[in-house]
């Protein structure tokens, strides 16, 4: 198995720390009534983007979903721009017009965030087609949940990507729930990865909570795309620590299973592992955590002080100007 080097291991930790802290702060801020927004917690799924995004460059493309703030932060979305956007403020990456489900940040390749299940994949293909024509070895990533593997766009997109040998990686974050419905009650295949076979594409299931396994699988898929070897379907097994949307009582989730998943939280496990293997000291990791906590606090205050957009923004950006 291809193990990340020590520097990358630490980089993965940094991104996990950022994501974990950001999720905790998001829920606190909403709970305190300081911010009103629909929030789809990604807590529990951090390993996937924290590893995958270390393999990507700024000019590689990402299409992500409403439960995708972890993907964006790991791909380089600046905290202040993110927080101002989810607060609906003018300093947000989309001037507050996109919100938490529609963040965009092209300078880091964050091209589309969609609130429609399954819709990252057709567009990621187009970005991959453009990259293929450009010939510079860029890759395109579509992330989505397990539920999205049951929608037509998934099947259309995997087929087209395979026929056209596109440099795209389909990253399924299988957290075992599609909205409120458990995996087995909605999905015929025991493994989503097996659906790759139907499209003559490598389908790989990986423990998405294991940073090294995740890194190795993602590296193989990204490398394949980069060298013109075509698409990969990556099924990353994980677990969603919270309900579908913040505030939902998640009574439909198995309590014992959820408790066990939280007990096995990959973040403290990875942290202990890094210390045990002398990759970093506890103090060093504490410093990383503290740095992000401070940056996030600063971003929250920045966002809440940022003005709302002017009223004329209501009707701008509907159409462009002719060149």
């Amino acid at each position, binding site marked *: 198995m291809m193990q990340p080097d020590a520097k990358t291991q630490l980089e993965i930790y940094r991104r996990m720390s950022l994501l974990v802290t950001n999720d905790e702060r998001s829920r606190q801020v909403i709970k305190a009534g300081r911010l009103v927004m629909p929030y789809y917690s990604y807590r529990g799924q951090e390993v996937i983007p924290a590893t995958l995004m270390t393999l990507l460059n700024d000019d590689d493309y990402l299409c992500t979903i409403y439960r995708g703030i972890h993907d964006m932060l790991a791909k380089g979305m600046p905290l202040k721009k993110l927080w101002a956007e989810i607060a609906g403020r003018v300093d947000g990456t989309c001037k507050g017009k*996109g919100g938490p489900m529609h963040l*965009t940040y092209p300078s880091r390749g964050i091209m589309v965030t969609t609130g429609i299940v399954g819709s990252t994949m057709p567009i990621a293909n187009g970005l991959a*087609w453009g990259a293929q024509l450009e010939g510079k070895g860029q890759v395109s990533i579509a992330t989505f949940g397990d539920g999205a593997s049951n929608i037509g766009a998934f099947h259309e997109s995997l087929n087209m990507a395979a026929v056209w040998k596109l440099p795209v990686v389909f990253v399924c974050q299988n957290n075992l729930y599609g909205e409120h419905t458990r995996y087995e009650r909605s999905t015929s295949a025991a493994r989503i990865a097996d659906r790759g076979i139907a499209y003559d594409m490598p389908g790989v299931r990986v423990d998405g909570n294991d940073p090294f396994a995740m890194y190795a699988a993602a590296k193989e898929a990204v490398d394949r795309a980069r060298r013109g070897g075509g698409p990969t379907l990556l099924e990353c097994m994980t677990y969603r620590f919270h309900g579908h949307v913040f505030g939902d009582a998640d009574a439909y989730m198995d309590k014992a299973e959820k408790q066990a998943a939280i007990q096995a939280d990959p973040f403290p496990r990875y942290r202990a592992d890094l210390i045990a293997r002398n990759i970093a000291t506890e103090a060093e990791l504490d410093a990383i955590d503290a740095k992000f906590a401070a940056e996030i606090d600063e971003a929250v205050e920045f966002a809440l002080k940022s003005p709302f957009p002017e009223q004329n923004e209501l009707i701008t950006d509907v159409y462009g100007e002719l060149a």
Partner: protein
Amino acid sequence: MSEGAGTIGKEAKLEKNNVIQAVNRALTDAMEADDRVLILGEDVADPEEGGIAGITKGLSTRFGERRVRSTPISEQAIVGAAIGASLIGWKPVAEIMLMNFTTVAMDMIVNHAAKLRYMSGGQTNVPIVIRTMTGSGFSSGGQHSDYFEAWFAHTAGMKVVAPSNPADAYGMMREAIDDPDPVLFIENLPSYWVQGPAAEKGHRVPIGKANVSMAGTDVTIVSYSRVLNEVLAAQAMMAEAGVSAEIVDLRTIAPWDQQAVLKSVRKTGRCLVVHEAVKPFGVGAEIAAVVQKELFGLLKAPVERLGAPLASVPFSRPLEEAFAPRAQEIARTAILMVKGG
């Protein structure tokens, strides 16, 4: 290369052509002028004969299958691929073979192509063209002939055009390809082979500009796409009855040329809107509302609309022939508006 599409070397001056040839020439000239123009859709490459009507014939041979790609029958994937490529500077022209098939790609068109500019606060835009064909009169029945332009015109971020003749088809396709926003380009299948004056190479018809096809004094008839030709035929019947019609070819449905329509109605005092789409909640309703609001005191008659009845396009020939407004009905309605009942 299809006949009349030749732009290689010194081309003999083309006097007449049909819409198939005009769109083919427009695509050829656009691809020649800008190597970021791409084409994708079902059957569009030459091994598949350049599409069911041969609109894209010759293009993959000339420009290569990297730029002209036949796709699986996967409308969401087609529009999605066009959107994605357009986000990074390519100019894809996606063919959705028939307008009814746009329904399969509605999420990509409405939730993504139309909205990404707005939702991104102007950071990204989607300069794609979606070519599609439709129209009753081809014995295709209920799922191959509908005009759904009102749906798209009702979607913020979309532009919708529907040329009525080959020269406009050429000029509007060239503009649509260079437009910074998604443009739905509606072609009429039954009138594909009707000849008309050929556009000069490089001819442009701005999006959002109507054309007065025929000047007149008594009544303004606003129309677009194939039924504009029914309106032109009706004009002759009206002339015999001593009624002079001014015919405004809207050409662009969204954003429609309010100024041109209001200018004409200000002159004639009467307005009739004619389209093939079903009448309730159609484009005619929007135009009627604006004309009545802006020119209420000047109108000599209520604004009238003609469109298909609220029905599916039928297969049986006599029923299909009765579906879209015909010249006689248009003439009768307009004459009644002028002369009274």
